[in-house]
């Protein structure tokens, strides 16, 4: 049974159909990448899944429950975590406090046990930020802020972790670590990531969904997508010209 499905999911902004009747299914435990040209509706689509914006029509089912009209904060408690495309850590709070917020949430919900401190340090260690726990997040390098964002997502104990362009702005060396980190996360959670960096997508994704003009253009394994002529026209460029 899929972890998440959408049926006819749509979102209009005025006359623009940003997401247009999308039927989508995500199996538990997979790493799914969403790719597509700018303005294809990828971020709008995952924002609908996380509850940041409401759909104009259609339906979202998570783990057998209809969550179409559920507010975002309740979806988070069910296990849908979203990390932002534009880094939005709490700049004036320390890295520790940034991660303490999601950790204490899961403690309150009874989804984890123990002390706030040990939970925070575990999440910081997994992302390699433990020695910067006391630093205000705004003073971290951009790459570290991205990692902190991931640490916050992780600390929410997600069943579905949605990563919106996680490698944007990272150095090549940081990207290698990041790929390892996502594989690690995927052992316990389903991962849905929007990504422009094709080598990262090809290394990580079990399956790829290609968006274009608010619709799903194609879906398949990395090999199938690479071989798909339509996708090459729409997105990958004139590699067959």
């Amino acid at each position, binding site marked *: 049974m899929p972890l998440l499905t959408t049926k006819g999911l749509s979102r209009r902004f005025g006359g623009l159909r940003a997401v247009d009747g999308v039927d989508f299914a995500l199996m538990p435990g997979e790493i799914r990448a969403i790719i597509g040209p700018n303005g294809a509706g990828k971020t709008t689509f995952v924002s609908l899944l*996380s509850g940041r914006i409401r759909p104009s029509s259609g339906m979202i089912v998570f783990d057998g429950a209809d969550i179409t009209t559920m507010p975002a*904060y309740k979806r988070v408690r069910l296990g849908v975590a979203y990390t932002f495309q534009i880094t939005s850590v709490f700049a004036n*709070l320390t890295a520790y*406090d940034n991660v303490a917020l999601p950790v204490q949430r899961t403690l309150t919900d009874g989804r984890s046990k123990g002390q706030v401190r040990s939970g925070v340090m575990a999440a910081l260690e997994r992302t390699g930020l433990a020695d910067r726990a*006391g630093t205000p997040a705004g003073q971290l390098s951009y790459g570290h802020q991205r990692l902190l964002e991931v640490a*916050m997502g992780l600390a929410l104990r997600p069943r579905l972790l949605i990563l919106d362009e996680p490698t944007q702005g990272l150095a090549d060396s940081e990207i290698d670590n990041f790929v390892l980190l996502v594989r690690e996360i995927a052992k316990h959670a389903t991962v849905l990531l929007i990504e422009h960096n094709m080598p990262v997508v090809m290394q990580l994704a079990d399956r790829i969904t290609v968006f274009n003009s608010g619709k799903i253009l194609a879906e398949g394994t990395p090999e199938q997508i690479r071989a798909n002529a339509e996708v090459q026209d729409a997105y990958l460029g004139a590699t067959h010209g």
Partner: protein
Amino acid sequence: MKDASPAKIYALHIGVIALLFALNFVLPDYHQGLFARIMALAVFAMGYNLLFGYVGLLSLGHAMFFSAGLYGAGLAVYQLGWGVPEAFVAGVACGALLALVIGLLALRTSGVAFMIVTMMFAQVFYLLILYFAAWTGGDQGLVIQQPSRIIAIGGASLDLTNPTVRYMSALALFSVVLLITLVLVRSRFGRVLVAIRENEERTKMLGYDTVANKLVAVVASGAICAASGAAYALLFGYIGSSFASVQYSILPLLWVLLGGAATILGPLIGTLFMYYVTDITSGFTSAYLLIVGVALILLVLFFPKGVLGSVRQRWLGWLP
């Protein structure tokens, strides 16, 4: 390093309370009275700071919560003949209930709209006090006589008009509220409040019902401000509509900004500073407001985050 041992933090705040206790025996009569007033009003500032400093909600209507406590307690004594402890509880309950209702309505807005909505509700409250002058005494106010301000405990009695009893009562309330706010802002709930101030949208995406958290903060803030008002009525024996006017909504904002928003001791320092600058300068000249104004400008120039806010930024990063 931002981390400080809890022992150090609690030692500092208990030290301040001990200092205020000792001052009772040192201060001349006039200053003893002034300090009692300042401590009672610093509670008002602390309640305001909880919402403004920590949650980042700027209300221009907190005079209504202060005067809900003032009238809730004052009228219970004056019109209903209640005893002092029951009247105090009634005052706090009035403020908390009013804050719940106002919070439910005003939290549908944010930013400038929140300021305007809270100010409008406070004006309604002010005008209601004038309208029901038959009970409230209107702009003349009411004086609560000494016999109504005596607490009987067993065989003994506490006379709130006695300067030392009054000082110690104000100090007791101040200490309790100081420690409550200290525990509150260092708790998980306090961390969520600060997160809402910094980035509400992000806080929602970490699974927090930000509206519910803000409502709890509004009620806590309203109840603390009402406790200040109730204490003021019972300790100083006068309730009047001027305490509900817009001036009393702006004063706590000023005290908090001066002392340092989102600092635990800032409200006390701001209240103390304003009272003494006004007191000292009015002794020299009738144009004392001019000197107060100059003092405020200098303070804002050299301490843009308030006295304690700037101290924390420059020297003592661990201050809560």
